[in-house]
Structures are given as structure tokens and as C-alpha cells.
């Protein structure tokens, strides 16, 4: 039974039947009696002083129930949207956190920023009302260009030079010394293009308030409902935590963009309380483009110092990161603790120094997006390494091997604050080289050339850090929340099991993976295990799903709680079998007494736990339900090798990916089918960043790529048939030996594609995304 559905089995996802038959239950599917609709009035100006807002015509319209401005929220002492990670500058000063009212009060700072909300009986009436709101703006100078933002017109009074912080990590002197003694220095100016996450389901919220009890319920598209509740309660002052229930029902993708607490759900739940009526808001796709947090957007000068034989001796990185107009919830941590710390990559580079200056611009806030910091770090390291190999005339695989941290080096302390627990980087590289047929590349290149095409190959050996942890280290570095996860394994009288987790699935398949773990451990049918998540009313405080943490942190908490269930069951079984705990074995769902043929099944024990006739209740409480909180000792470190082959049409500049191999070490794998799916999705996003996706603001601060007519979403026919495989070095510090797989595809692939493309063209760099015209110009030598 467990073998087909247990740990390691490619079980089909439980949740897919409802998703693919249209039976999923998303926030927008939720309707309440007497429900109203909210529409936000959004700034058309990238930066302007609000002189006045007039909602009177809106209020006079049929069906309009209320119209609120930022001043109304402020009058109710609704607080600013906070940033949850305090990053300090080099000089020890705190980062600048400019005021960020959920609904703008006196200024607007990006196109799409809400400055009023209209609530009406119908969506149509709310739209009409929103159009009737008028405002008098005084336009202010706009800061859009990232390179010149520092020193441009000052956006926030609190942020001179538009600087949020100027952060550093690593040993500057040692790194400078390494460069001084190097035989060769490879340097690159790297642009990490700005992206828009584009979850399939747009953000939405349904806010409810029950006057009789004072209880609020917020249904919303959150990746972490407990954190949403904490922030709405503790920072935004909507209601006491105990009075506020946040539920994330089925959520259709997030990629990070649904981690954050946004203006819209804040205003909706507040207004629901004011009007004592349910209010629904759902973003239009154009609102998603404008007002979801965007991703990446770095400018970097990166230098790698090497010995003549290719040994890395130092890495120096200077990055300017765009925060957008305000600090979104985790924006500050992305280009620092999730970026600078990953710059060692898979290599023994002895000296590393990184400086990151984060700046404000009049664009939408920028925050974590699938990979969050690690794709940026991988891109820097892997583009540099490949370029260095070319400059020194080395094989790109050989130069990596020469510098890899070796299996015997673990645990390995990097010069940038992390300790890698385990890995075997050459194992993944070797497998990837075999799978792509590296030996045959020259031949394939020749045949491409015979067909008038240019062909190139590129490597990327990435490392990432998942399951952000441990709490105490993160807290000491400025994190505002703990980073553990909760679990409860509740066994029913009849032996079925509910697993409560503080993680949240927005596409990852937790209902399947977590059920596999628990059914495997308890030896009960997979179908008998239900996973409950996304509801602060049903599970203990947890941190949600981001940073590939759910299996490694949440899954570990589930293992811990399940072990407690087994421990208690063993005690009950011992009484039932008239033996002692030490003499009772538990295997495949059966307790048996050592050296005897007496046995009893897990459901029988569960039944006894609730019908406690045969064990002493003064020694053992009745019931069978256990909780656990798991705080990891360390990050986990998935790593792997991606190799890409491209063909370029020299006449048009069109790039086609003709071969893509990803070999990843995710440690132990619970469900290989889900893992492959996660890798495929991640690769599509990483390749999308390299070739297709680009969020563009024009000089005046308008978003040019505000729809799918202009923002190039990767499609199936843009993708090759991926070859994905894995190697395994089990994580040494969690009970599953797992490392996390949610982001690796997006982290490793981008550099592989661009390394392949620059190889094909014989150029040092091509800016991303490598659109046909960009490539055509690169070939023309521009």
C-alpha cells in the first residue's frame, strides 16, 4: 500500500482532479449574502502631490455605497504597510523605510498606486463610481532610470539620494588583495531585467465582518495567511489577531507575489468592518500588471579574479537594486541576505566582497519573485565563470570542476556567511554532460552551421538556499518574524488523519506530498490523510509558503508531529498488547510485540485512544492528536547543473532552445512527478527571463508592458522538451533529508541560456531579455 503512494512514489496529485475540472475553490468563487464590490482608483501619474480628492459625484451614483480615500483609513488609525526585514547600511544605520499608507494620502509614487476606493452594490456600479472620483494632482519630477536614481530628484523626504540602504558583506581588504595578486580578472556589467510575476489567478479578497461578535474574516489570495493576519493585526491595526481569521482557499500561483500584504485586502477588510457588509475585490489583469510587486531589476558590476590555471581567487560585486516606490514586505532582504550570501556559488572562491545599494524609483514596488535573490546571484556567478573560461581558453566544465567545493569539504563555510551542509557538484555536472551529449556538441554545431544557424552551448552550476532559517540567526540579521513551521497531526476515531500545516499550497501539491509522508509513516492508506492549510482558524501559526520551504520546514514539522503520534500510539499499543513500549515495534501500520505473534493495527490503536477502555488514563491522556513546531538548524542547499543549447537564426535574431538538461540535487525526493513539475515550471520562468519577459517603464514612468500584448509570457511553444534528472546527497539536518525544489528551475536556467547564446554569437554579453531585435543587433556588433 505505502509503496505505491509512500515517500518516493510518483503519486498523481490529489488536488488536480478539482483543478482541471474547474472545481477549484478560489477567492473569487466565494460570495456572501449582501456582498458589495470594491474598485480602486489608481494613479495615472508616476509621481504627484495629491492636492484634493473629490468623491462626491461617486457617492451620488446609483448603487455606490461608500467611497474612501487614504485620509479615511488614516482617521481610523490604519497603519502603513510595513517591511519585515531591517537591513543595515555599511555604517550601521538602519535602512530607510518611507511611509507607505495602503491608500495614498498626500502623494502618489507610481502608476497604479491606489488613492481611493469605491464600494458599491455591483461591480459595474463600483467601476462607474471609481471613474467618477476626481482628484487634483500636482505632478512632480519622475525618477525611473535605475542607474541614475541615486542622486536624482528625491522621492521620499526620509530618503536622501533615494537610497534605502548601502549594504555590504564579505571581506573587502582580503578581496582587494586577491585581485591585486590575480593573473587574470574577468569583469562584466550585468543587467538583471525587471519581471512581472503573472500568477494565473489575479489577487483577490473578500472581507467580512460580524457585528455581533466583532469577528473579521478575510478570504484572500495569500501565500502565508498567518503572516497576513499578524501584519493586519499588529502593524496595520485592522483588528486583534484573535478577532481576525485569514483564509487562503485554493490559490492559483503566486511565485512570491502573494507573500506580501497589499493595499487592497487591507482596505477591503477595514471597509468591511466599517460597513458591516461583505466586500469583494478582484484584480483585473491590468491591475495585476500595475500593482503586483514586480521582481528582480538589478544593475551589477561583477569581477572575478583568477590564477592563470583558472583557480578563482576573488569575487567583487557591486549592485544597485531597485526597490520601486515603497518597500514591499520582504523587499529589503532579497538583494541582500538572499543574494550576497549566495555569491560563493558551488566554488571555493576564498575572498568575496559584495556591496548592494538599494534605491527608490517611481515604479511599482519590487520584491521576492521565484528564486528571490538567488537567481540574481547565480546569474552573476555563472555568467562570470563562463566568461572567464572563454577568456582563459578553458573548457567551461573543467574550470568549474577545478573550483568546485569537494564532497570532503562539507560542512563548508563560505566567505559570505553560509555553511553548506552537503553536496556533490561534480556528480550533477557529470550527469548533465552525459545527458546533453557534450561530446557530440561540435558535430551538432557543424550541422547547425550547414543549415545556416549559429549554435551555442552554455552551463550553469547553481546553488541556492531554501527554507530560510534558523529563526535566531535570521532575527539577529534583521528579520521581523520567526522562521519555523507548525504542524498538527490529528487522528480521527476511525483512523483517518487530518494534517494541519502553516504552509500554504498555491500550486505546489502539498495535499499530495504531505499526505504521502504521513501515510507512509503511519502505514495507513494515502486516501485517509487530508491536508488542511491556508486557514488561520484551523492551523497553528505558521509562516506559509515561499523560498522552497514547505517540504523542508513544514514537512519536517509534520514528521515531528507524526513521530509524536507514533510515540503515543506505541504507549497505548503496549498496554493493549500487555507488553512494554520498548518491546513494541511499529512497521507498516502495525504494532507488534518483539518475538511474539501478537499485533494490533494503527486504526485499532487510534480507536482505543478515543474509546479509552484498556489503558490507564492517569498515565496517558485520551485522544490522539499531536502538534509540533520545527525550527531548522540551517538553510538547505539544493544545487545542480543546467546545460542549454541554443540555435540562432542569423537573419532574424530569433533564438531557439534546442536542448535543455537540468540535473538537480534536491536531496531526498517525496514525489518525483511533483518535483519534475516544479522544475519544468521554474525552467519556463528562468528561460522566460532570459529570452522573453521584460517589465518596461518609459521615461515618463508609464508601464509600457501593461498587458499580454506587450509583456511576453513564456508559452509552451517557446519551450524545448526538457530533460530533467536528479542526483541525491541527503540534507544532513532535517528528518526528510530533503532540500526543496520550488525555485531551482528559475535559479539555474537563466545563466545557462545566456551562456549558450553568447557562445553561439561569440560575444561577451547580450542584455536580457534576448529578444530577436536585441540578438540581431548583437550580431551586427551593436
Amino acid at each position, binding site marked *: 500500500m505505502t509503496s505505491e503512494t509512500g515517500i518516493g512514489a510518483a503519486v498523481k496529485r490529489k488536488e488536480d482532479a478539482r483543478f482541471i475540472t474547474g472545481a477549484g475553490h478560489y477567492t473569487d468563487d466565494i460570495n456572501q449574502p449582501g456582498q458589495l464590490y470594491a474598485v480602486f482608483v489608481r494613479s495615472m501619474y508616476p509621481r504627484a502631490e495629491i492636492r484634493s480628492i473629490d468623491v462626491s459625484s461617486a457617492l451620488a451614483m446609483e448603487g455606490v455605497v461608500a467611497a474612501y480615500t487614504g485620509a479615511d483609513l488614516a482617521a481610523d488609525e490604519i497603519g502603513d504597510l510595513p517591511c519585515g526585514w531591517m537591513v543595515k547600511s555599511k555604517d550601521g544605520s538602519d535602512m530607510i523605510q518611507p511611509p507607505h499608507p495602503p491608500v495614498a494620502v498626500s502623494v502618489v509614487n507610481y502608476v497604479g498606486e491606489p488613492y481611493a476606493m469605491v464600494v458599491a452594490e455591483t461591480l459595474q456600479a463600483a*467601476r462607474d463610481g471609481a471613474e467618477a472620483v476626481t482628484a487634483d494632482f500636482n505632478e512632480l519630477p519622475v525618477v525611473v532610470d535605475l542607474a541614475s536614481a541615486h542622486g536624482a530628484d528625491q522621492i521620499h523626504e526620509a530618503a536622501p539620494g533615494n537610497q534605502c540602504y548601502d549594504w555590504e558583506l564579505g571581506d573587502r581588504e582580503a578581496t582587494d588583495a586577491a585581485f591585486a595578486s590575480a593573473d587574470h580578472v574577468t569583469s562584466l556589467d550585468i543587467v538583471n531585467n525587471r519581471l512581472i510575476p503573472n500568477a494565473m489567478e489575479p489577487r483577490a479578497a473578500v472581507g467580512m465582518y460580524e457585528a455581533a461578535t466583532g469577528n473579521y474574516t478575510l478570504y484572500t489570495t495569500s501565500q502565508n495567511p498567518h503572516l497576513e493576519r499578524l501584519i493586519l493585526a499588529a502593524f496595520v491595526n485592522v483588528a486583534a489577531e484573535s478577532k481576525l481569521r485569514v483564509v487562503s482557499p485554493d490559490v492559483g500561483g503566486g511565485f512570491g507575489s502573494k507573500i506580501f500584504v497589499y493595499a487592497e485586502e487591507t482596505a477591503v477588510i477595514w471597509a468591511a468592518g466599517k460597513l458591516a457588509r461583505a466586500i469583494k475585490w478582484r484584480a483585473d489583469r491590468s491591475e495585476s500588471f500595475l500593482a503586483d510587486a514586480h521582481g528582480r531589476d538589478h544593475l551589477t558590476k561583477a569581477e572575478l579574479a583568477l590564477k592563470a590555471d583558472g583557480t578563482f581567487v576573488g569575487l567583487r560585486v557591486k549592485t544597485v537594486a531597485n526597490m520601486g516606490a515603497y518597500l514591499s514586505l520582504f523587499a529589503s532582504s532579497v538583494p541582500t541576505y538572499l543574494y550576497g550570501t549566495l555569491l560563493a556559488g558551488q566554488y571555493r572562491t576564498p575572498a568575496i566582497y559584495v556591496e548592494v545599494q538599494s534605491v527608490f524609483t517611481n515604479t511599482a514596488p519590487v520584491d521576492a519573485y521565484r528564486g528571490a535573490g538567488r537567481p540574481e546571484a547565480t546569474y552573476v556567478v555563472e555568467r562570470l565563470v563562463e566568461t572567464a573560461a572563454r577568456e582563459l581558453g578553458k573548457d567551461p566544465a573543467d574550470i568549474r570542476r577545478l573550483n568546485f567545493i569537494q564532497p570532503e569539504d562539507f560542512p563548508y563555510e563560505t566567505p559570505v556567511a553560509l555553511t553548506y551542509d552537503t553536496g556533490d557538484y561534480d556528480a550533477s555536472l557529470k550527469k548533465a554532460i552525459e545527458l546533453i551529449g557534450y561530446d557530440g556538441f561540435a558535430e551538432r554545431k557543424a550541422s547547425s552551421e550547414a543549415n545556416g544557424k549559429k549554435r551555442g552551448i552554455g552551463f550553469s552550476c547553481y546553488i541556492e538556499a531554501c527554507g530560510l532559517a534558523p529563526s535566531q540567526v535570521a532575527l539577529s540579521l534583521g528579520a521581523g518574524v520567526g522562521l519555523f513551521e507548525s504542524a498538527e497531526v490529528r487522528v480521527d476515531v476511525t483512523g483517518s488523519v487530518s494534517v494541519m500545516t502553516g504552509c500554504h499550497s498555491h500550486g505546489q501539491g502539498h495535499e499530495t506530498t504531505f499526505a504521502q509522508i504521513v501515510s507512509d509513516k503511519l502505514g495507513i492508506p494515502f486516501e485517509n490523510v487530508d491536508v488542511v492549510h491556508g486557514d488561520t482558524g484551523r492551523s497553528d501559526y505558521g509562516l506559509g509558503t515561499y523560498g522552497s520551504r514547505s517540504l523542508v520546514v513544514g514537512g519536517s514539522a509534520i514528521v515531528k508531529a507524526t513521530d509524536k503520534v507514533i510515540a503515543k500510539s506505541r504507549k497505548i499499543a503496549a498496554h493493549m498488547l500487555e507488553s512494554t513500549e520498548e518491546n513494541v515495534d511499529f512497521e507498516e501500520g502495525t504494532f507488534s510485540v518483539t518475538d511474539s505473534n501478537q499485533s494490533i493495527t494503527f486504526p485499532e490503536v487510534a480507536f482505543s485512544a478515543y474509546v479509552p477502555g484498556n489503558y490507564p488514563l492517569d498515565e496517558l491522556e485520551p485522544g490522539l492528536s499531536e502538534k509540533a513546531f520545527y525550527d531548522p538548524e540551517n538553510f538547505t542547499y539544493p544545487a545542480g547543473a543546467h546545460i542549454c543549447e541554443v540555435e540562432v537564426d542569423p537573419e*532574424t535574431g530569433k533564438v531557439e532552445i534546442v536542448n535543455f538538461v537540468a540535473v538537480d540535487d534536491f536531496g531526498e525526493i517525496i514525489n518525483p512527478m511533483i518535483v519534475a513539475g516544479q522544475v519544468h515550471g521554474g525552467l519556463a520562468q528562468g528561460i522566460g527571463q532570459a529570452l522573453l519577459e521584460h517589465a518596461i517603464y518609459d521615461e515618463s514612468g508609464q508601464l*509600457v508592458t501593461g498587458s499580454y*500584448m*506587450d509583456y511576453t509570457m513564456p508559452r509552451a511553444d517557446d519551450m524545448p522538451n526538457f530533460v530533467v534528472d536528479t542526483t541525491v546527497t541527503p540534507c544532513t539536518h532535517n528528518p526528510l533529508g530533503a532540500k526543496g525544489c520550488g525555485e531551482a528551475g528559475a535559479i539555474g536556467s537563466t545563466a545557462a541560456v545566456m551562456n549558450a547564446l553568447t557562445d553561439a554569437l561569440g560575444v561577451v554579453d547580450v542584455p536580457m531579455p534576448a529578444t530577436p*531585435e536585441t540578438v540581431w543587433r548583437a550580431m551586427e556588433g551593436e
Partner: protein
Amino acid sequence: MYRFNYHKPDDMDAAQQMMADAEDGVYLSGGMTLIPTLKARLASPTDVIDLSGLALSGIELADDSLTIGALTLHSEVAAGNEISSLSNLALAIGDAQVRNRGTIGGSIANSDPGADYPAAVVALGATINTTAGAIDADDFFQGLFETALKPGAIVTSVTFPLPVRAAYEKFPNPASRYAVVGVMVAETNGGVRVGVTGAGPCAYRQRNFEQALADNFSVAALDGLEVDYAEFNSDIHASAEYRGHLVGVMARRAVAQIT
């Protein structure tokens, strides 16, 4: 959307009368362009007159031409007919959903600069039949979303003379999949014609290519020919210069297909 009056007439006269009576009316065919525009509140007609009840669908073969009813779906043209280049063109429009709703009449009446059909209309020397008379391809497309269609007139069908040989090559916009540049090269009974879409404000004939191909119908004949891109479209996906370059590339590939 804003509120509007919806009409679904069942004959052409009624449709035109409704249009005449409307304060600010608009015809609806497949809705693939009009509906998104309405949803985004970018248009606010008082009346929407749905043409789908009119008998304007179907493909008819005569001795030397093919007449395609205005309401004929892209998917129906793509399914195959006597002009294979036209089927191929229709198959390259948008995606399956769009092809199953969008109509040839709507596409041509709309004259989107990136629409595919206009290249064929121009290259094959088609005639656009409307309730206000027939219009020659060379006169029909007049500018960005501008045509010679009389106000209130309905496109009823398009008549394509059968070409001796013809081929279409499209370089799709990576985001929208409309044509950044699309070129149809045709040898017709009236000579060689080259129709270009995507590059400029509307579809046009690339006359210098036509002359070169009339003398020598080969890829080589196009080598080194200039494309004047001064008035071409320029956007984040393609500059005018790049579009100019692509006109040459697509034309050569179209010629290569049929030589």
C-alpha cells in the same frame, strides 16, 4: 464595459438600419478585437449590432477566384482551400480560441497594423465586397485602423483571384503573436505582387520587390534591395529599422517557399 444596447439583426438591411438609427453604433463579428476593447472601457458605443445572424459565412470557388464570406472564421479558412498560402496565413493567426471566433470580415474591417489577412488581400489583389459596393485591395487600407469602408457599410465578403503561386511568411510578435512583419509574395495573373503587413501603419505593396521579382522570380533577385522604413512602426518589440530588415528576410523566405 459600459452599458450599450445589443441588437442581433437577421438581415443586412435591418443591420444597416439599426446602425443608421444608433447614436454611436458598432458592428460585432467575432468580437476578438471589439470585446476586449469594450471590457477595458476603451470604447463606449451606444449600440452593438451583432452580425452573427447574417448569412455571410462560407467559402465559394468560382472559375478563377475564391470568395470568402465576411463571417467565415479563421479556423474555417485555415482548414484548407484552393489558395494554400491563405490557409497557411489563417493558421498562423493568434491561437486556436481566436481562430475559432475571429472572422475575416472583422479582421479586414479593423485593419490592425499587425493583422495577417491584409497582406493577402493586398498581395492577391483581392476585392472587398461591401454593402456600399466593391473596393479594390489597393484602395482599401488607408492608414492605422483606417480603411475605405464607408461609414455604416458592412463587409460582406472578400474575393481572392486564384494566384499562380503564392506564399506567406510571418515574423510574429513574441508577446501578442500578431505580425511584427508579414509578407505575402504572389505571382498573380496581373503580375507579381508583394503585400506587407506589420511593418507600416497598414498593409501596403512593396513595389521595388515586385519589379525585381517580375524580372527574375528568385530569392537572389531581392538581394540588396532597399526597404524604406522611415514611416514604419517602432515599439519595444521592433524598431522601424529592424522591421525594414525583416521585410527583406520574410520576402526572401516567401519566395524560397515557391521556387
